[in-house]
């Protein structure tokens, strides 16, 4: 187990170094001048070559790329993660302030996806091709097909125009005011959770259908065991492994999807910060947030692998 963990940690570290190099290079070769965002279009138009040289030097952008990359690694090692080009705020502070909101959204979305997806999948599998199965399949396909940000916009507009309601417009942390915080995160969490729940429903249905046809389930039925106990106690745990795997992958989608959904709901989380940083070409913020997302993805997948061993005693690392 320890060896496995070490191997996965090294693999994860390699992945993150690869991601950091790719994002570092991509952001620097993309066309577009970050000084437009710093100076504004009027200031940029009036900038003299000597001003450019000075500003680029101040920002550290005139150093060779390897020097810039090593400086970034140093910033990561010190925990500062670098400073925004523009205002000098550290990326660490940005993550500490906005991260909890995005983390709550992701966690709630995961809970919603399981709360909705798993019962729907079980109901579909127990009576395949019945009316409940048909409804569950149609609904799940609907939520897979509909983009989250569009659904988010509809919800925001409906709440606004029908009830004159809008969630708080600045970050309210859960420890400051749990009720207002819930109002802020519940919308994005439901939209993201329903989309992921649709995948979980589809996956759990097919896995459960497969397991229900196994010999040991037939044996249990022949022995006269209760149908509910057969499904929940015998079949479901064995059907859950692929569902857990997909949940790990889906968390990645939740992180990616949160960028657009936070934007639609106007929630000032990390996803929205990433969008703004991309628009502003604040490359220090972008590269750190992308790396953070990659790190979360790697860690979640390690946890998913470890949970296999816990759920299925036959699996040993």
């Amino acid at each position, binding site marked *: 187990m320890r060896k496995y963990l070490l191997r996965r940690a090294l693999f994860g570290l390699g992945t993150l170094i690869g991601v950091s190099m790719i994002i570092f290079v991509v952001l620097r070769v993309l*066309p*577009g*001048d*970050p000084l*437009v*965002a*710093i*100076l*504004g*279009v*009027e*200031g*940029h*138009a*009036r*900038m*003299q070559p*000597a*001003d450019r040289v*000075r*500003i680029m030097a*101040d920002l550290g952008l005139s150093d060779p790329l390897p020097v810039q990359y090593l400086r970034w690694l140093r910033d990561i090692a010190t925990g500062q993660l670098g400073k925004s080009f*523009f*205002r*000098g*705020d550290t990326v660490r502070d*940005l993550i500490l*302030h906005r991260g909890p909101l995005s983390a709550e959204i992701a966690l709630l979305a995961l809970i919603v996806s399981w709360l909705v997806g798993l019962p729907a999948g079980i109901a579909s599998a127990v009576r395949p091709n019945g009316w409940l199965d048909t409804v569950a399949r149609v609904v799940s396909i609907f939520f897979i097909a509909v983009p989250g940000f569009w659904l988010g*916009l509809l919800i*925001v*507009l409906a709440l*606004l125009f029908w009830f*004159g*309601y*809008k969630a*708080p*417009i*600045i*970050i309210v942390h859960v420890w400051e005011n749990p009720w207002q915080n819930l109002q802020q995160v519940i919308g994005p969490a439901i939209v993201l959770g329903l989309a992921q729940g649709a995948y979980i429903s589809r996956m759990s249905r097919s896995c459960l259908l497969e397991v229900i046809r196994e010999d040991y389930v037939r044996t249990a039925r022949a022995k006269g065991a209760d149908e509910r106990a057969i499904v929940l106690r015998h079949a479901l745990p064995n059907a859950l492994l692929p569902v857990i795997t997909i949940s790990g992958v889906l968390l990645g989608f939740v992180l990616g999807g949160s960028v657009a959904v936070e934007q639609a709901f*106007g929630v*000032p989380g990390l996803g*929205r*910060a990433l969008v*703004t940083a991309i*628009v*502003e*070409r604040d490359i220090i913020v972008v590269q750190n947030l992308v790396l953070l997302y990659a790190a979360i993805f790697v860690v979640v997948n390690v946890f998913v692998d470890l949970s296999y061993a816990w759920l299925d005693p036959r699996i040993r690392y």
Partner: protein
Amino acid sequence: MSEQRRSHTAVSRRTFLRTVGIGAAVVAPGLAATPARAQETPSPIRPDPAAKRGGTLRYAVHTAVAHYDVQQSGTVANIGPQSPMYDTLLRRDPKDGQTIIPDLAWKYEIAPDGKKYTFYLRKGVKFHDGADFTAEDVKATFDRIARPPKGVVIPRTPLFATVGEIVVVNPHQVEFRMTEPRPRAYMLGAFASGWNIIVRKKTLDDNGGNLRQVMNYPGTGPFKHVERRDKEVWIMERNQNYWNKGLPYVDRLEIYHAPPFSPELASAFLSGKVDYARLLDPVAWRRAKEMKGVTAAAFNQSVIQAFWCNQKKNKALNDPRVRRAIHLAMDRNALIEVVKDTAPMQIGGFVYPFHEMSTPKADLEKKLGYQKDIKPAVQEARRLMQEAGYGQGLKGLDFVVRDIQTFKLWAVAIQAMLKEHINVETNLRVVQTSVWFDEAAAGNFDLAISAIVSTLMDPSDIFSAWYGKNGPQNYGGWVNEPFHDLASRIEKELDVKKRTAMVRQAEDMCEKDPPLIPVAYEQIYDAWYNKVHGQNPTPYFGIYDVVRWDQVWVS
């Protein structure tokens, strides 16, 4: 002896009066010129006895600052949240947004030849850190604006190009000595611009003249910084020691971040989360207008929306007849209709259509290119293309479009108009804003659509920046020597009537040889709940001058 003594000691009534009169004549100007304390030199903005004091004003505007240096900025993201903390030498009266009134200077004098501006500064004004405000601060502020250090870029520098020397006469009097005169309205407008806030000399010295990363530098303004959360809210409190006693009215100012024309802004206002919203989208603004207890106002903005023809790269576009044909091929009423739910716009020519010196709207609408019936303009456009040798049209023009909703909508419409009216075929290339400016600077385009902001409404500002031979926003590389000569004379002409005639002449020159193709002029949509009093921006020009909220109260 006694008679003699009497002649020395007795004072006749006439002598007495003459003496007093002479004495008064000598002393009075001295008294008038002696700068009094702040409260003895009241601002024209007097506290309204009917106003209610206290409370919080919640204002939503774009506040995503790229940096904190107001003078280096060109965006409402800075001036929106930061202006309440600062004052200017002169300011625009919040009542009409036009009249220039004293601010930190309680009085000013302009030499008859227009080559010297003297400002008498208020005494007893303090910065938020407790330091006294003096003429040294004014000098340091305007020295930096007129001649920024390396690595500092201030868009308003050209407005002070003729300021030769700034002389501190005494701690409360400062002179701006000009190398050559400029029209009074031009210079006073420059001093009253909301961008030209007064900052401490020490602040500038301590930071090498660059405040881009200094978040809370002291001002003298009506509000003091309390807290800022990036892209969320900037909170300020009433400056208890504000020199204009009795102002501001509200105790707390909360300025929330909401991008222009965005659903966030609309929903924050319509749900009552904020009291005042600036830059609402047209759909939300129309809805606000119908709401009970809400006032919605539209006013002019200092922005032109236009596209440029690259005259250096494309031989055909270097021909004034082709550019005029393109200009005439535009159905401007349709273009405004295209974006009516995205951003509010109005028709205009080459000078702000609402400026007193520009062609009046009624006359402009009779001109080719601005009429509702575009057939005559299109016929003339085709004739011009024929005459220029491009009767068959042009193919494959690279049309660079900034990735902003209005430009994307317009680009498609302009593409269709050019094809249909004069058989000019274009390939649209949508790029990020930063890329657009790279491409424009490098000349990598045939046509390119964007917008420009100006500080002043005065034509001389735009004639040098937009149409000047080396103007920073002359993206097409336009050169027209007679125009440049005329613009230079307009800049120096002090007589308003003569200047107006010259501006009309310049407009005509642009019609014949367009330096750019005007698409529309922007408007601003604001809305506020009626509990907010003391400001109605309807007569304002732009969102960069009346931005201090000191005269606003909440009931």
